C-alpha cells in the first residue's frame, strides 16, 4: 500500500529531526514531572513553613516547651527561639516581622489554672495575612494546651478526691486516671475522632471527590503533546510542497487519497506512541520521584478508545492547519495559537476548575477539554467506557469537523 510507504518515509524523516523528537517525546515527560511536582506542592501545602520568632521568658517551663513543640508539630509554622533583646531589635529593624512572647511564669500559671497571656507582637513589616495566619495557629495550639492542662488538672483533682474514699470504692488511682488521659490525648493527635482532610473546594472542582495531580499531569500533557503532532503534520505537508516533492508525488501513480493518508498516518501513530510513552514513563518515574502514583483507571479498553479518538482528532487538526496555512510562518503561527491556547483553556496545563468560570466555559469549545474530561473520568474517577462515551463522541465530532474542513479546503497545487 503506497500510503504506508509515504508514512514510513515521513517517520524516517521525523526521526532524523532531533528537535521534533525532543518536542514530541522528551518534553512531555519533563512537563509531566515538573507540573506534578508543582501541583502536588500546592495541593499538599508543601510550601516552606513560616518562621515564627519565639521569646520564651518562661525558662525551663514544661508548658512553654510543650507549646513550642506543638507549634513545630504542624507543617505551617516553625518556632525559632530568640532572646528578648534580640527580638526587640530585629522587630524594629524589620529583620523579623513578628514575635511570640511566652511570659515568665507561664507554666506555673497554666498548671495553677490561672490565665496565662501569650503576646504576639507585630513588627512594621508584617502583613495582615501573615499576622492572621500565625495568630490562628498559635491560638489553636494554645487552646489545645489549655484544654489538655485543664483536663489533666481536673482529673488529678478528681483522683485526689477519690484518694479519700474507702479502698473498695477506688476503682482508679489518680495516677492511673492521669496516665490514661495523657495516653488518650496523645492518641487524639495521631488518630483524631474528627479529622479534617485538605481538599479543593467543591465549588471549584464541581463536586469531585478527589484530585490526583500526577494522573492529571499525565493526562493533560499526553493530550497537549498528542495535539502537537498536528503541527508536525502541517509542517511536513508544507515542507513537502516547498521541496516540490508533493507535486512530484502527484505525477506518480500514487492517488491523492493515498498521498493524504500517507501524510496523516504518522501523526496518528505518533500520537498513540506519545500517549503510551507518557503514560508508561509517568507510571514508572513519578512514584520513584515521590510525586504520586498516577492511575490508569479500571477500564483499559476505554483508555484505548479515548487514545485512538484523540489521535484521530490530532491528525484531523494537522490537515486542518495545513489547509489554512499558506506560508511556513502561518503554519507555526496558527499551530501555536490553536494548540497552546487550546491546551491552556482546555485545562491541559492547569486544571479547568482553577481557570474560573469564564475560561472553564470557553474550554468546552476545544477538543483538549473533552479529551481531558474522558481521561480524568477514567484515570481519576475510575469510571468506564460507557461513562466517557459523551466526551469521546464530542472529541470524535471535532475530529470529523477538522478532517472534513481540512480536506475540503486543502490545496494540492
Amino acid at each position, binding site marked *: 500500500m503506497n500510503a504506508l*510507504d*509515504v508514512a514510513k*518515509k515521513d517517520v524516517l524523516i521525523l526521526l532524523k529531526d532531533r528537535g521534533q523528537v525532543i518536542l514530541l517525546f522528551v518534553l512531555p515527560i519533563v512537563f509531566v514531572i515538573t507540573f506534578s511536582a508543582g501541583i502536588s506542592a500546592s495541593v499538599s501545602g508543601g510550601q516552606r513553613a513560616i518562621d515564627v520568632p519565639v521569646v520564651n521568658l518562661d525558662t525551663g517551663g514544661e508548658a512553654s516547651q510543650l507549646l513550642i513543640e506543638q507549634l513545630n508539630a504542624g507543617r505551617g509554622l516553625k518556632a525559632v527561639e530568640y532572646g528578648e533583646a534580640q527580638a526587640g531589635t530585629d522587630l524594629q529593624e524589620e529583620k523579623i516581622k513578628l514575635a511570640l512572647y511566652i511570659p515568665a511564669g507561664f507554666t506555673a500559671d497554666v498548671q495553677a489554672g490561672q490565665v496565662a497571656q501569650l503576646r504576639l507582637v507585630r513588627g512594621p513589616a508584617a502583613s495582615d495575612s501573615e499576622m492572621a495566619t500565625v495568630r490562628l495557629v498559635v491560638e489553636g495550639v494554645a487552646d489545645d494546651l489549655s484544654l489538655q492542662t485543664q483536663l489533666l488538672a481536673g482529673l488529678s483533682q478528681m483522683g485526689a478526691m477519690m484518694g479519700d474514699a474507702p479502698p473498695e470504692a477506688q476503682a482508679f488511682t489518680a495516677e492511673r486516671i492521669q496516665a490514661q488521659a495523657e495516653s488518650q490525648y496523645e492518641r487524639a493527635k495521631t488518630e483524631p475522632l474528627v479529622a479534617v482532610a485538605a481538599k479543593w473546594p467543591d465549588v471549584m472542582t464541581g463536586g469531585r471527590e478527589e484530585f490526583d495531580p500526577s494522573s492529571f499531569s499525565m493526562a493533560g500533557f499526553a493530550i497537549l503533546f498528542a495535539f502537537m503532532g498536528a503541527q508536525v503534520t502541517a509542517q511536513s505537508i508544507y515542507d513537502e510542497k516547498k*521541496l516540490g*516533492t508533493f*507535486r512530484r508525488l502527484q*505525477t506518480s*501513480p500514487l492517488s491523492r487519497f493515498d498521498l493524504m493518508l500517507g501524510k496523516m498516518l504518522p501523526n496518528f501513530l505518533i500520537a498513540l506512541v506519545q500517549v503510551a510513552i507518557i503514560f508508561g514513563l509517568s507510571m514508572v518515574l513519578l512514584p520513584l520521584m515521590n510525586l504520586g502514583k498516577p492511575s490508569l483507571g479500571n477500564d483499559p479498553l476505554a483508555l484505548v478508545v479515548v487514545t485512538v479518538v484523540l489521535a484521530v482528532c490530532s491528525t484531523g487538526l494537522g490537515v486542518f492547519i495545513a489547509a489554512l496555512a499558506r506560508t511556513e510562518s502561518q503554519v507555526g503561527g496558527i499551530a501555536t495559537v490553536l494548540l497552546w491556547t487550546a491546551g491552556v483553556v482546555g485545562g491541559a496545563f492547569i486544571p479547568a476548575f482553577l481557570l474560573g468560570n469564564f475560561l472553564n466555559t470557553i474550554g468546552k469549545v476545544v477538543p483538549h477539554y473533552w479529551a481531558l474530561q474522558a481521561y480524568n473520568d477514567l484515570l481519576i474517577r475510575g469510571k468506564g467506557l460507557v461513562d466517557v462515551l459523551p466526551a469521546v463522541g464530542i472529541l470524535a465530532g471535532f475530529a470529523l469537523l477538522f478532517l472534513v474542513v481540512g480536506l475540503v479546503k486543502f490545496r494540492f*497545487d
Partner: protein
Amino acid sequence: MAEPILIVEDLEKSYGDNHAVRGVSFRVARGEIFGLLGPNGAGKTTTISMLTGLFPPDSGTVTVDGLDLKTHLTAVKAKLGLVPQDLAIYPTLSARQNLTFFGKIYGLRGKQLNNRVKEVLEMIGLTDKADKAVETYSGGMKRRVNIGAGLLHKPDLLFLDEPTVGVDPQSRNAIFENVEALNREGMTVIYTTHYMEEAQRLCHRVGIIDTGKMVALDTPSALIRSLGGGIVLLGVAEEQAEALAEQVTQLPTVKAATRTDGQIKIETHRVQEALMGALDLANQLDVRLTSLEILEPNLESVFLHLTGKKLRE
C-alpha cells in the same frame, strides 16, 4: 513518423487572465528525444504539468501509448517519469533512501527494487556516497539524485524539465550522456530547456513554444535550414535606426530588416555580403554603430527569427 507514444491535441490552460497554453498540439514518436524549447514563462512547465497529470487542461486531449490521460490517469502515470525543474527530493534522507522511496511509489518491491536502486546509483555515479544525506551533496550531485528518482521504474516516457539549470559543466555533460544512454535503451524523452545548444545536441525534433503557442516544430537541422543564412544585429542610435533599416531592407541579400530596442535585426541568406552592405550604408548615412553581433544559423537565431526575442530574455 514512427508509432507515436504521445499525442497532444489542442491543449489549453488559463489562470484567470493569463492564457498560459494556447492550443498546443504535437506528437512524439516512440524512442524519440523531443525538445520543448522556449524562454522562461513560455508555457513549457505548464504543458509538462498537464502531460504528466499534475492538473488537467481546460480543453484538449493527451494520449499516452494509446491511453487517454483523462480516463486512464493512474495507468498513464505508471508509464511516465518526471524529473522536475527544481530539486524534488528529501534532503535529510540519503540518495539510497530517496531512490528506494520513489521506487516503492512506482510499485517496485524487494529484490527488484534493491537491484534497480543499485543500477540507478551506478548510473548517476553516486554509489560511493549513496548512504550520506542528500543535504551534504554538491548542487550537481543533488541534480543527479533528482534525475535518478525519475528513472527507478524505467518509464516508457521520461519528462526532463530543464534538468541542467544551475548545474556545473561536468555534471551537465554527465546528464547529457545519461539521457543519450537511456534513449539508446529505448526510452522516449521529452526534454524542455531554454538552452538552444542542449536542444540542438540532444533532440531529434524540437517544438518551439512562445507565449503558450507552438510556433515551430521540426528537426533542429530543418528549422535552421528554414532560416537560411543567419542574422546580423546592429546597435545604432535610436533616432538613426529607422533611416538605416529602410536602406538595409533594399539590399539584395537581405530578407528583412526590423528595428528592435536600439538594434536593427537583419535576416539574410548570406551573412558576409549583408554585413558589408549594411556597414557601407551606415557610413554613407553617417550612422554611428554602438554594437555589432552576428548570429550563426542555430536554434537561437531560429527562435529570434520566429518571435523577435532571444531565448534568454
